[in-house]
């Protein structure tokens, strides 16, 4: 493909359009367009008036798109933006409506002017209204494409579903609900659908929003009393991508609004894709009617990647970097960071920057030191009540079964109390949950915690024990 810049490409497109369109149409509608920007997938064109944009989009976009494709050699999205030409500063006083240029109409003074109101009616050239994302003005991240997504057994189903949706929006699976823990690629897959659909012209109007943006815009709409505009904006989409839908939990008015938006889009056969960090029926405070709708189409889960996938992700990422790392380093990172792809990539970036700074691959101990906090964070996440029980039992050399037994000799009761105390301190679990894990009542746990807490103040040996167990559990910075 020839490397184009926006100006050169537009010149070529103009040649084609000139041959296609009537000279008058050409001079009136094509000659007023200025090429603005060209990137991998989009040619951005600027006009000076939102009305020109409307008229061009409604009437000449197919011609322009076709000519762009012809000139460029492959498909390219064409978008318009409004940019006033700043040739002269606006006249300080009201301009006389004398000489009217043939094409651009001069601003006209107000009708029945009042001393303080003259400015109100002068055409305000507004920058492209920021509040309303116009069709196609998606905030998609260019990096999130299907071909940069590493497929493995943990995500192959979700990936296949997304590809199917992208190839046939609103036909394959509608709505598509993707869930999984943070950093497993939900947003990546979702945006990849948006990119694919735009690039292949499957749906002209694509909107990607996070639930938070959705909420803010809804509140704005309520404040400025323009709920219709808000509705129109989302209900006019061909593909609506809503990220982190679980943020709707507990927001009743918004759920109501979203319910109607969902229905409007669904019944108009428009594709809806949502992501969440948990299955719809586990989102607390989400209305049942929404839950059932979310489960209507295809629900697909992203699971933490297995070792091979993690390694593939690292290799994939490394290919785009300048520095090459030995396979053993990649394997080390992949084997130690398991639950989330963001720290996985972060660890790689860190090692790469180390290598480019020191011009040497870090040895094993240095590597561990370099990635200490990431590895620890990983350990943090794995803490379960059972894990703590196990660590405590190991430390005090008692049996795991003693943790929940009814026996109460000092040698067993004391470690048990330490374990209860650590469970309370290191996890978010409630007293009853902890009690349950130990086969005791919550009062027992409460007693154990307060007892250990008070003893910690005087008992040097106990303090040492607790800190050591916490360290073994990956909590180096545990403070009593």
């Amino acid at each position, binding site marked *: 493909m020839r490397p184009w810049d926006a100006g050169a490409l537009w010149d070529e497109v103009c040649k084609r359009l000139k041959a296609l369109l009537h000279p008058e149409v050409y001079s009136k509608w094509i000659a007023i367009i200025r090429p603005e920007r060209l990137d991998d997938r989009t040619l951005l064109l600027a006009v000076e008036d939102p009305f020109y944009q409307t008229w061009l989009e409604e009437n000449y976009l197919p011609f322009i798109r076709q000519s762009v494709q012809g000139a460029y050699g492959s498909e390219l999205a064409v978008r318009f933006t409004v940019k006033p030409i700043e040739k002269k500063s606006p006249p300080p006083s009201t301009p006389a409506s004398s000489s009217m240029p043939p094409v651009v109409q001069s601003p006209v003074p107000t*009708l029945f002017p009042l001393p303080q109101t003259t400015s*109100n009616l002068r055409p305000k050239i507004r920058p492209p209204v920021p509040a309303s994302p116009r069709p196609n003005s998606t905030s998609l991240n260019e990096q999130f494409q299907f071909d940069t997504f590493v497929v493995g057994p943990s995500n192959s189903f979700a990936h296949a579903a997304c590809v199917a949706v992208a190839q046939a929006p609103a036909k394959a699976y509608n709505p598509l609900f993707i869930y999984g823990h943070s950093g497993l690629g939900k947003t990546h897959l979702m945006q990849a659908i948006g990119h694919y659909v735009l690039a292949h012209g499957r749906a002209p109007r694509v909107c990607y929003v996070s639930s938070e943006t959705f909420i803010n815009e809804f509140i704005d709409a309520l404040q400025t009393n323009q709920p219709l505009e808000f509705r129109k904006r989302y209900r006019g989409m061909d593909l609506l991508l809503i990220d982190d839908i679980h943020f709707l939990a507990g927001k009743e008015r918004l759920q109501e609004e979203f319910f109607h938006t969902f229905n409007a889009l669904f019944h108009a056969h428009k594709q809806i894709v949502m992501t969440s960090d948990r299955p719809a029926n586990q989102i607390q405070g989400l209305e049942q009617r929404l839950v059932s709708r979310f489960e209507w189409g295809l629900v697909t889960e992203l699971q933490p990647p297995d070792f091979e996938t993690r390694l593939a992700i690292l290799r994939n990422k490394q290919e785009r970097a300048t520095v090459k790392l030995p396979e053993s380093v990649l394997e080390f990172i992949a084997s130690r960071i398991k639950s989330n792809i963001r720290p996985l990539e972060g660890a790689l970036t860190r090692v790469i920057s180390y290598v480019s700074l020191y011009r040497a691959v870090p040895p094993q101990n240095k590597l561990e030191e370099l990635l200490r906090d990431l590895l620890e964070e990983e350990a943090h996440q794995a803490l379960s009540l059972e894990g703590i029980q196990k660590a405590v039992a190991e430390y005090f050399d008692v049996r795991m079964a003693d943790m929940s037994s009814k026996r109460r000799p000092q040698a067993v009761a004391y470690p048990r109390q330490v374990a209860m105390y650590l469970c309370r301190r290191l996890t978010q679990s409630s007293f009853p949950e902890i009690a349950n894990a130990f086969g005791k009542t919550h009062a027992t746990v409460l007693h154990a915690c307060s007892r250990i807490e008070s003893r910690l103040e005087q008992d040097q040996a106990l303090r040492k024990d607790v800190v050591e167990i916490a360290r073994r559990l990956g909590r180096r910075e545990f403070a009593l």
Partner: protein
Amino acid sequence: MKITIQREQLASALQRLQGISGSRSTLPILSNVLIETDKDKIWLTATDLELSLRCAVPAEVVKSGSTTLPAKPLFNIVRELSEPQLELESDEQHSTSITSGAAFFKILGLPPEDFPALPEVQSDVSLTLDQAVFRGMLEKTSYAASTDETRQFLNGVLLSFKDDKLTAVATDGRRLALFEQEIEIAKGAEGELIVPSKTVSELLHGLKEEGTLRIRQAKTQIAFECGDLLVLSKLIEGPYPNFRQVIPAQAENRIALDREVLLAAVRRVSLLTSTRTNSIRMTFAKNKLTVSAESPDIGEARETLPIKYSGPTLNVGFNPDYVMDPMKHLPTDEVFLEITDEISPAVFKCDLPFLYVLMPMRLD
């Protein structure tokens, strides 16, 4: 407050007002109409804060005063009453009893002080127009306004007062209707403004065949006054579309068409447009126009019209509704279609200072 009033006159006034009150439910008082007595009439006011309507109904005022009543129940009651006259009497608690013949109603109102004050439209200059003329201008253009709320500046009729001409324009991005009327415009009264479609439709209902209309404008408000009717409305803020850009300079071919014949033919043929494309094909050949449509599911339709035409054969696609709209609203027998080719804008004109730009659709 105590009044006696003709049922039919009250009902027709309320019918118009209830379209405005209650369209927004945020403030309960907005679903009420304000009733105020005057010498020998009452004033009824409804507002949704963007558009306000105030009209007078002749009445016999026994005891002056004011109150507010929920518009919808009041209208439903008045409509159902059988006697030609009715009596309204309100007490201090703002509940109003309605008596007509043997029927009695009591409905609860809200204090009139709570009713939002109408925006003041203070302006030194005003413009006076013939009601029928203005109404005709709105009728012939307003159907082309956009209903796409994302393009707010197109959701109304643009009025341009300039060079002793009032121009009314409406467009939705695919077609544009324009009517230009010569009127006298006071110095300093020139300008452009966009009147929202909802206000236009109230004007179309309220304006009569005779009498004059006074227009005043200040800041973002506009007031239309005619006789016993006052329409106050917010204006749509610009940017003002540069509509002249849309109008083609000249066309290669000008074809005279019988308006009613064309309208009837398009209406018939459009029965068989497919829902996907919703387009009809107009084929201009030597002295013959063929209007045709086909729908893969139903079948096809074709109708030929004799015309005077000697240019090259043209095969143009149009949205049938967009062809019929101006035909429905024009009074002339003959319209002229100016057309250049299959993809350039076509223009309908007639003997009035009217024009209608219509973009062809692409035929596959």
